[in-house]
């Protein structure tokens, strides 16, 4: 092996909520290459640590509790450690979550990793009135321990030094846990067999670790060993020992985990020392109200409502500015260029610039929505919301955590679908990704406002609110149906770390806001932009060929375009029961690209500017209140936008993107038709 040419590489490991991403940023300066681990949609982050002129590659492992074969994240982590052999594995241990953190640390040591312990959040432990004797911890587990406070940067310099030192002084503590005479004897026997029959295996993995995994019956390792020439013999020996052990100590797997936990508790007991009377906990005070059985949910609804208000009010001036800059100023500049052919001017002005405008006008509101959300998340409130809704979500076979992709979806469905990644159970994750598009995103709101404002009068506000509720109810119902059919199977269990409330940190909030907004900007941006250009193309051409840009101004001419023909076809066939105008049907077709296009398309189709569209819809009686409400519901449900479908494909594959498309269109049709039929029976018009 050409070891010289290999870059020095370290990995970061830790259980969820120990401040791992903050440590990553502190070590790498926040610059990271972000991608996926091969073959799975689990995020992989790689950065560079520069220290004393050396460049060290830093790989961020997924947040994990252990190194079993039960979870994809844990398999990724352990395969990385075994196969890529990072020079150092920094295990971040939370001082206020010592037991579970140390359990992972011991698991890493058993795997033979060269571990450095970063004892993080020591300031919070002090607030709780206890101290951790890190020197003693170092002595007990035999690897370096560095206390840090990632939020202030305390101890980070020392951590870097220790990492560099550890690269040259490899320490292996694979025997950190003593499992007792009976189990240890079995381990040594298997170890011997492995060393005799499969020395190549013993070179790659610590033999003791393989022996332990075989005793536990780890599916991945059993599979790997059975593929070896001597595999059967090793497995037989292990199974034989497992059986003997089973009679003496019960299930070996359970016994091994418990023993390891006992070891953790022993260490914790030895290193933790009370130094002060704990202060009254702010977290307990806040939680007594925020997670209260009765007032908790109303408070959560208020918080989300405030989030919306914040996003709208604050973004108005910026959105107006973008609107003027693009749709008036830039548009006029292009129209003012002389010497361009007509079609090119129209392509630039009505296709390209309108497309860019459609995306950019939503940028401020979406950015502020995600800013507010990131603050709520960073404070620790979103975990509480998951707790509050779990009882209801449980009835729909979904974990409480599924509420988070739905709330993000209120901002923009594209990052909403992606947020479903945080759900561990595969069936629940796929279901959540498929229902997240039913959350009414910011782009649908203008449609509700225009049509509701024109037709529904005083009850418009209530109608809009009801659509948000309808979206969530439908998401839950579809979720239940999916969980009963395609994604059957008991939940693997919703368990979540519940950290204390903390002050939001500027860099955390900024990074999260930017990451989600960026998804909207690039993912949605490119797709929506392309879509707008296609809409333009379908509007200025027809069966008779090129109609010229006048088609966009002249409703009669537009009727002759591909788009017009399609709309009339839709209005006279599938939508004939709905009583919608052909122009409204065309607008729906355009809305496939992005919901915000529905309003601008209607404006074009009625031959007026967007500012007058409300008056036109009201004066010409385009909708009755009933057909208007059905139309708004249709806009809510049918396909959020092409970008969201692209994201579903990205996360789940093409098959599920098609499924999402079909179910959403069908559901929209059924719901709208039901609104019209039930409404007319009840005497609404």
């Amino acid at each position: 092996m050409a070891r010289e040419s290999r870059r020095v590489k370290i990995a970061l490991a830790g259980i969820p909520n120990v401040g791992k991403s903050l440590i990553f940023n502190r070590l790498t300066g926040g610059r990271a290459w972000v991608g996926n681990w091969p073959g799975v949609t689990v995020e992989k982050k790689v950065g560079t640590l520069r220290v004393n002129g050396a460049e060290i590659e830093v790989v961020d492992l997924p947040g994990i509790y252990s190194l079993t074969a039960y979870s994809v994240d844990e398999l990724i982590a352990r395969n990385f450690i075994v196969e890529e052999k990072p020079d150092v594995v920094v295990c971040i241990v939370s001082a206020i979550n010592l037991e579970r953190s140390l359990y992972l640390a011991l698991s890493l040591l058993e795997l033979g990793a060269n571990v450095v312990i970063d004892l993080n959040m020591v300031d919070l432990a002090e607030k709780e009135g206890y101290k951790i004797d890190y020197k003693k911890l170092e002595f007990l587990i035999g690897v370096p321990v560095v206390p840090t406070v990632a939020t202030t940067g305390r101890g980070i310099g020392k951590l870097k030094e220790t990492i560099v030192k550890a690269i040259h002084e490899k320490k292996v503590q694979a025997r950190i846990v003593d499992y007792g005479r009976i189990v240890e004897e079995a381990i040594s026997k298997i170890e011997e067999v492995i060393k005799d029959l499969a020395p190549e295996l013993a070179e790659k993995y610590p033999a003791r670790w393989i022996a332990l995994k075989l005793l536990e019956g780890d599916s991945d390792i059993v599979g790997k060993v059975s593929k070896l020439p001597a595999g059967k013999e090793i497995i037989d020996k292990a199974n034989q020992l497992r059986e003997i052990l089973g009679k003496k100590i019960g299930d070996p797997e359970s016994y091994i985990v418990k023993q390891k936990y006992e070891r953790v508790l022993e260490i914790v007991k030895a290193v933790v020392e009370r130094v002060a009377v704990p202060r009254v906990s702010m977290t307990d005070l806040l939680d007594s109200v925020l997670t209260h059985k009765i007032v908790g949910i109303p408070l959560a609804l208020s918080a989300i409502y405030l989030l919306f208000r914040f996003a709208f009010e604050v973004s108005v001036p910026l959105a107006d500015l973008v609107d003027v800059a693009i749709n008036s100023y830039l548009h006029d500049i292009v129209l003012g260029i002389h010497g361009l052919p007509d079609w090119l001017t129209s392509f630039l002005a009505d296709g390209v610039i309108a497309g860019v405008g459609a995306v950019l006008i939503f940028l401020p509101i979406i950015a502020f929505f995600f800013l507010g959300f990131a603050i709520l998340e960073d404070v620790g409130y979103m975990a509480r919301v998951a707790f509050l809704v779990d009882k209801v979500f449980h009835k729909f076979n979904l974990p409480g955590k599924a509420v988070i992709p739905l709330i993000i979806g209120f901002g923009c469905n594209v990052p909403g679908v992606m947020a479903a990644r945080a759900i561990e159970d595969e069936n629940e994750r796929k279901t959540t990704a498929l229902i997240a598009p039913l959350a009414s995103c910011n782009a649908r709101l203008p449609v509700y406002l225009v049509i509701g404002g024109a037709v529904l009068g005083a009850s418009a506000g209530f109608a809009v609110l009801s659509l948000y509720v309808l979206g969530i109810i439908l998401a839950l119902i579809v979720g239940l149906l999916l969980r009963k059919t395609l994604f059957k199977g008991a939940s693997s269990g919703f368990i979540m770390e519940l950290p204390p409330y903390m002050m939001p940190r500027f860099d955390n909030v900024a990074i999260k806001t930017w990451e989600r907004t960026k998804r909207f900007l690039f993912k949605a941006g490119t797709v929506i932009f392309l879509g707008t250009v296609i809409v333009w193309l379908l509007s200025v051409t027809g069966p008779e060929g090129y109609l010229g840009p006048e088609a966009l101004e002249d409703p009669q001419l537009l009727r002759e375009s591909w788009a017009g023909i399609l709309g009339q076809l839709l209005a006279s066939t599938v939508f004939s029961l709905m009583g919608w105008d052909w122009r409204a049907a065309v607008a729906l077709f355009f809305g496939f690209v992005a919901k915000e296009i529905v309003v601008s398309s209607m404006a074009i189709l009625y031959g007026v500017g967007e500012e007058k569209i409300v008056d036109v819809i009201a004066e010409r009686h385009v909708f009755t209140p009933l057909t208007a409400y059905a139309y708004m519901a249709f806009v809510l449900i049918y396909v959020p936008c092409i970008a969201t479908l692209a994201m579903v494909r990205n996360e789940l594959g093409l098959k599920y993107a098609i499924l999402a498309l079909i179910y959403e269109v069908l559901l929209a049709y059924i719901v709208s038709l039901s609104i019209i039929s039930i409404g007319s029976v009840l005497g609404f018009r």
Partner: protein
Amino acid sequence: MPLAYAQEGKLVRIVAIRAGKGLHRRLHELGIIEGKMVRVIKTQGPGPVIIEIVNDSPYVSKRNFPPYRPIATGGRLLLGFGVAMKIMVEEV
């Protein structure tokens, strides 16, 4: 009694875990082990719970600070309704 039915603020002891192999191991690795004590911080009884794992013997207090309550160094966990139904507890 399932943990989902335990009362807020009560200290309970885990007597059995009725879960499949994967979840069983996961719970063990989180420190939710038969015989251990757990304080129910929040519940929507019956429903999801927020718990704190309590260790039987309080940690040493060298400088004469009375251990008003055992030091919970375990952090808090949110267990969904489904999981909370699979953990059997008794009041202590």
